[in-house]
């Protein structure tokens, strides 16, 4: 059994997604592949030997080989995300290990219907699932409910619009919690029981749900879903911490 090893990757592209979110494409010669929803551990080592480590979800689907896409939200007073945003440049090396996690994973063999609920950067592992679903030409019914503060905060906005318009059986629903675009007719509040109820109705309690984002959002959504009668083993959760809250 291969041990989980730290490996060096090279940043090939850095792409701004929103004013405070960037995607990093990392080329990894020794990468063994991953499943949608898995993450990596990233380790930074200072010149004096001090090390610190954070987890980042893999945004790219398994179908993209040779490199990973990581999407990182800038936490102003954070330790690692400002380094990634402000210091790391194309051509730099990053040390990481993975893929890790087997629980927060969905692929087409798991089946559906699939309900994804994300807040802020919590959309990252959900995006890997949707990209994988599209790459497999799957028609498994899928809905993404995505909570964002403002229109500026929608990560992967163009790609989500494009996927929602072109891929069979997928619906993307965004809720804006602080400010909606002019003329917006969709949701504009925090995710609550009534919203979840509307979003899950076409699927009923057979939905496989994946909930990811700031801890408080995940706690509240998971409790609501279980309260609505979803079996707890169909409610998969991944908490990112205070991030983006």
């Amino acid at each position, binding site marked *: *059994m291969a*041990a*989980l090893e730290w490996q060096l990757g090279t940043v090939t592209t850095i792409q701004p997604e929103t004013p405070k979110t960037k995607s990093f494409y990392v080329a990894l010669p020794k990468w063994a592949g991953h499943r949608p929803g898995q*993450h990596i*551990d990233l380790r930074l080592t200072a010149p004096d030997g001090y090390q610190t480590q954070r*987890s980042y979800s893999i945004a790219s689907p398994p179908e993209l080989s040779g490199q990973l896409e990581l999407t990182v939200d800038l936490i102003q007073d954070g330790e690692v995300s400002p380094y990634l945003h402000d210091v790391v440049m194309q051509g730099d090396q990053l040390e990481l*290990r*993975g893929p*890790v*996690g*087997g*629980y*927060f994973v969905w692929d087409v063999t798991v089946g559906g219907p699939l309900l994804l609920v994300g807040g802020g950067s919590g959309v990252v592992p959900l995006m890997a699932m949707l990209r994988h679903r599209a790459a497999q030409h799957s028609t498994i019914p899928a809905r993404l409910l995505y909570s964002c503060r403002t229109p500026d905060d929608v990560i992967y906005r163009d790609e989500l619009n494009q996927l929602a318009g072109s891929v069979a059986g997928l619906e993307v629903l965004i809720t804006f919690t602080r400010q909606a675009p002019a003329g917006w007719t969709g949701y504009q509040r925090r995710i609550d029981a009534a919203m979840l109820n509307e979003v899950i109705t076409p699927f009923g309690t057979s939905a496989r749900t994946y909930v990811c984002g700031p*801890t*408080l959002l995940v*706690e509240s959504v998971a409790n609501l879903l279980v309260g609505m009668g979803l079996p707890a083993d169909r409610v998969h*959760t*991944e*908490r*990112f*911490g*205070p991030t983006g*809250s």
Partner: protein
Amino acid sequence: MNVETADMNTELMVDGNAIAGELEQIFGHDMTMAVARCAGCAADSMMATLMAFVRGPGAVLRCPSCTSVIARIVETPTATYLDARGMLYLRMTHAS
């Protein structure tokens, strides 16, 4: 908030997914779906669903049902310590 004690801040909490890498390092394979039975309340939880506090010295895992400490992982420069006295057992389903 009733789940808050001195060393617990719900907002900073993550879950067992966050230590999937550490667990895999210790056990040699993914442990997020292994089921731990809490010694405090006998509830069964997948490791991924345990409450996790990872920013202290080491990681602390707590039972999502009763919040008692299920396990602690501490890394020193020379060794990894796993204190698992808060669980009655850990069930690992054989890979099929």
